[in-house]
Every structure is written in structure tokens, then in C-alpha cells.
């Protein structure tokens, strides 16, 4: 029964508020853009490369190079 009486919300002054909202909107969209790539599945090449780099450094790796 009281809900209608408490409706007053505090609003920031118009211009300051607008500039802040712009900043927030840009920040959110930037993160969105970045996260779009972050959330893509990682291509297999990455892990393959890392495995190769690992084996290259390991002493006595099973497969000596040159057999290509």
C-alpha cells in the first residue's frame, strides 16, 4: 500500500550524469568486445605449439629433428 509513495529516486544532474553514462557504456562495450574473443574456443594450434616447444626443450626428447 505504501509502494507508490516511496517512488522518489535520486537522479544525478543531467550533464554530469550523461557523461558518466557514456563512460560506463563505453567500458561495458569494450569489455564485451574483448570478452567476445576471450570466450572463443582456443584453436588447437596453440596447444600443439606449446607441446612442440616443450618437447624441443626436453633433454632426450623421443623424436630428434631432421627426419622431415
Amino acid at each position, binding site marked *: 500500500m505504501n509502494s507508490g509513495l516511496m517512488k522518489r529516486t535520486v537522479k544525478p544532474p543531467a550533464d554530469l550524469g550523461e557523461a558518466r553514462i*557514456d*563512460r560506463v557504456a*563505453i*567500458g561495458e*562495450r*569494450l*569489455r*564485451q*568486445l*574483448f*570478452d*567476445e*574473443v*576471450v*570466450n*572463443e574456443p*582456443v*584453436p588447437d*594450434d*596453440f*596447444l600443439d*605449439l*606449446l607441446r612442440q*616447444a*616443450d618437447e624441443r*626443450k626436453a*633433454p632426450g626428447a623421443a623424436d630428434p629433428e631432421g627426419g622431415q
Partner: protein
Amino acid sequence: MSDAARPPADPARDQIFKKELVALIPQLRAFARSLTGDPTAADDLAQDAMVKAWDARASFEMGTNMKAWTFMILRNQFYSEKRRSWRQSQLDQEAAERTLVAIDDPSAPVALDELRMGLAMLPAEQREALILVGAGGFAYEEAALICGCAVGTVKSRVSRARRALMEILRRGEYFRDGAPAGDAMGTILAQAERLSNAT
């Protein structure tokens, strides 16, 4: 002499390092994409950085900020390639054009396309500062470390980049209402250039 020698191989440490490095790959890809504006070139760059980080693992101090460390490696890699093979003065313009072509996807959300386009128009140093702080979650101090510049420089780059982007996005809304795309691009580019050179 023995202090300076490479520490002996430590398989357990390597395993932990590798696990953390793998967990950072998505972030490295995103940062690389934001620097190059081109998915294929970005993945090449991210892969180079990943392998470099792996090869340099002995020099990484475990427990410190590995994300910042790998981002620094990626960034250095990007600029050393850029110095080798690209003409600096044309880079930003070319990146903007490439991005414009790349985003010609009618199903993509308009606002994100405009942001991508706007980012491509910013000078590289402003773009990277804004991405690191605004999307990468780095503090100004960490971003300064990654970019090899003063904290105040990062702050001013970020704020100039924000201002220029806001303006580009505002114009974008205006131009979407029917001005020819070519004219709109020319005006936006000129505007972006003016804004990013201001102050």
C-alpha cells in the same frame, strides 16, 4: 657466476607454469586481436608470444603477475614486427580499413561494430592503453609497466581515447540515419584525428 647461471630444469615448476600459461591464452588472443584488428594476424602474434613466454619461463618469478608479464611479451613482439615490416605512418589507416571490411557482417550488433571501428581509428598507443585498462582489467600502474611508460602517460592516453570514442559513437548514431557511408567515414576519421591529437 653460479647465481647468474640458468636454474636447472624443474619439471614440477614447468607444469604449473604451463597450466597458468594455457589459462591465459584466451586473454592473449583478445589482446592480440585488439592490437592487430585482424583475427589471423592476431593468432600468429598470440602464438609467437606464447612460445616466447614458454621459452623464457626460467626468468619468470612464480607468484608475480603472469598476465601482465605475458601481455608485455606480446606487446613487445607486436611492435618489433611492426618496426620490421610495416610503415608506421600508414599502419593506423590500414588497420581501420581492414577492420571496416572485417566488420561487414549484418548480423553483428551495431554498437559493437561502431566501437570496433572507432578503436581502429585511434592511435595505437591510445588504443592499447584503453584496452588494457578498460577491458583487460589492469590497473594504471600495471598498464604502465606493460607499455613501458609513466603512469600519468597511461592515464592521459586512456582519457583521450575515451573522449575520442565517445565522440565517434555519438557521430555513428547520427550517420546511421542515412548519410552516405563514404562521407560519414571521411568525417568520422577527420573528427577522430582531431580529437586524438587534441590536448
